[in-house]
């Protein structure tokens, strides 16, 4: 049995970024933080993908997390990063719990389309809600940490540090979860659900649990994104946002909990570079990359590190 190096690797990355982050330029801090936010969403999608389920509407929870954070700011003046992230996670997790009763009964394309439909319902609602700014959305308050307001130059680093810590904990917890009996059930559900039932386990229950975890993670990411970008709008629930998350999931692969964050970072870099080179061809670059990954690297970027699935 191979020694589990993931926790150690995660710890090293955390430390490295915390230390070197102080010297990185503002735009890099922004890029990495956004990558962490999206990485959290994709971490959840990865758990679902291991069961063979692809959600075409994960942006639903991303958006719920963002708007929860934004609303807390608007209604109560809350701007503490931790609080906002926890609120986003809780709100999304709750909705995920409720919707999970319905969605855990579906598979393949139908699961995908139903999750798409639900996310578009939220989009439609938000766009028409004047109180929330309709298509324009609204701004989010500048971040504070435990009541302290960092100096302007240090805001980004502070948010990054919090994000790193949260992502580290989330990744560790998910990694542990994937090693439990319920976590290990994922590839079995994907391969042969009848056998899973006949072993004495409920596939639907297992999927429900994973669905809630994925929703909570997406809400966490959404709240973080809201804080970092400073602005939220209904576009966060649109199908193209969900598409972006799926893109990163495929790009990253399902091999390890580090993969989603790596994938999100690579995606961010490609997006930034491609857009800088030519604003009207960056989607083509994205589309081309997706095709290349699907055809030549079906197990994602992580398979470059390890041939087979780990954990």
């Amino acid at each position, binding site marked *: 049995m191979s020694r589990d190096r993931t926790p150690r690797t995660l710890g090293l990355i955390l430390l490295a970024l915390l230390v070197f982050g102080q010297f990185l330029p503002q735009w890099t801090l922004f890029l990495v933080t956004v990558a962490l936010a999206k990485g959290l969403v994709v971490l959840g999608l990865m758990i679902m993908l291991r069961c063979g389920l692809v959600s075409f509407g994960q942006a639903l929870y991303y958006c719920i997390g963002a708007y929860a954070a934004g609303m807390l700011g608007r209604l109560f003046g809350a701007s503490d990063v931790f609080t906002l992230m926890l609120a986003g996670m809780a709100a999304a997790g709750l909705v995920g719990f409720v919707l999970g009763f319905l969605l855990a009964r579906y598979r393949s394309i139908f699961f995908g389309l139903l999750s798409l439909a639900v996310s578009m319902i939220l989009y439609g609602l938000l766009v028409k809600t004047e109180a929330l700014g309709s298509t324009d959305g609204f701004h989010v308050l500048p971040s504070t940490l435990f009541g302290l307001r960092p100096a302007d130059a240090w805001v980004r680093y502070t948010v990054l540090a919090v994000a790193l810590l949260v992502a580290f904990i989330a990744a560790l917890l998910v990694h542990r979860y994937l090693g439990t*009996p*319920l976590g*290990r059930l994922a*590839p079995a559900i994907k391969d*042969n659900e009848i*056998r899973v039932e*006949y072993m*004495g386990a409920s596939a639907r229950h297992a999927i429900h649990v994973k669905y809630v975890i994925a929703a909570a993670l997406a809400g966490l990411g959404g709240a973080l994104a809201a804080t970092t970008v400073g602005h939220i709008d209904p576009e966060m629930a649109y199908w193209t946002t969900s598409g972006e998350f799926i893109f990163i999931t495929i790009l990253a692969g399902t091999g390890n909990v580090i993969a989603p964050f790596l994938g999100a970072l690579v995606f961010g870099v490609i997006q930034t570079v491609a857009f800088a080179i030519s604003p009207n061809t960056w989607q083509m670059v994205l589309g081309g990359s997706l095709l290349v990954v699907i055809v030549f690297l079906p197990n994602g970027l992580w398979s470059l590190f390890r041939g087979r699935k780990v954990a």
Partner: protein
Amino acid sequence: MTAILDAQGLNKNFGAVTAASDINAAIERDSVVGLIGTNGAGKTTFINMITGYLKPDRGRIRYEGRDITELAPRDVTRLGICRSFQIPQLYASLTAFENMLVGIGVVLRNAGRGGFFSRGRALVPGHDLPAEDVAERILERFGLAEYRDKNAQVLPGGVRKLLDIALTMVAKPKILLLDEPTSGVSAEEKFVIMEMIMTAVRAEGATVLFVEHDMEVVSRFAERVLAFYDGRIIADAAPEIALADPEVKRYVVGGVLRA
């Protein structure tokens, strides 16, 4: 002498097709029962109803006195009734070892062990060993040790059959339903495989029902035979008697039995 499994008055129709017509069968603890009959006679339907995959239109099924007719397959399995399949149901993308680990994981979870908050290596109930050791042991007992790290989908037919049955042993079942355990296996291997299965299974003290088309295997391993035809049980006796029954000869065996 109470029966461990008792089916009473089972009826099941699929439109115009009668899959089960007033089936009554009481299975004694520790017995080995062979289920014979032509294709479509109702043997697999019988197993499907016992395990909860199908619900009978009428009738009850009792296990150790408890009514299990309405239970879902996973609940029936948790109670100690496990089955293997005519076409082996495996996890194609996982290795034989990983297949076992999934099954063992489920057993652990159902016993409340090895979850997210547990510490150390949990012991599998009934075996009192960690999961990996249990997997190795069972694989060895079925002669599958050499296939440990091969993906299930590349395994040869007979090996897949054995793995399918090995998976059912993980939960230490009290009743084992084997659906055509030797089908797809060459004539020479049939007896060897059946011997291996029965030794491994009986060592755990399980009651066994097996569906079989080869009458020699039936006579050799079954203590009692239930012959099915057209949804009915047409004979219920020891193999020598059942196989000599004229109706059975006509509808199931089809002529003279090789001595």
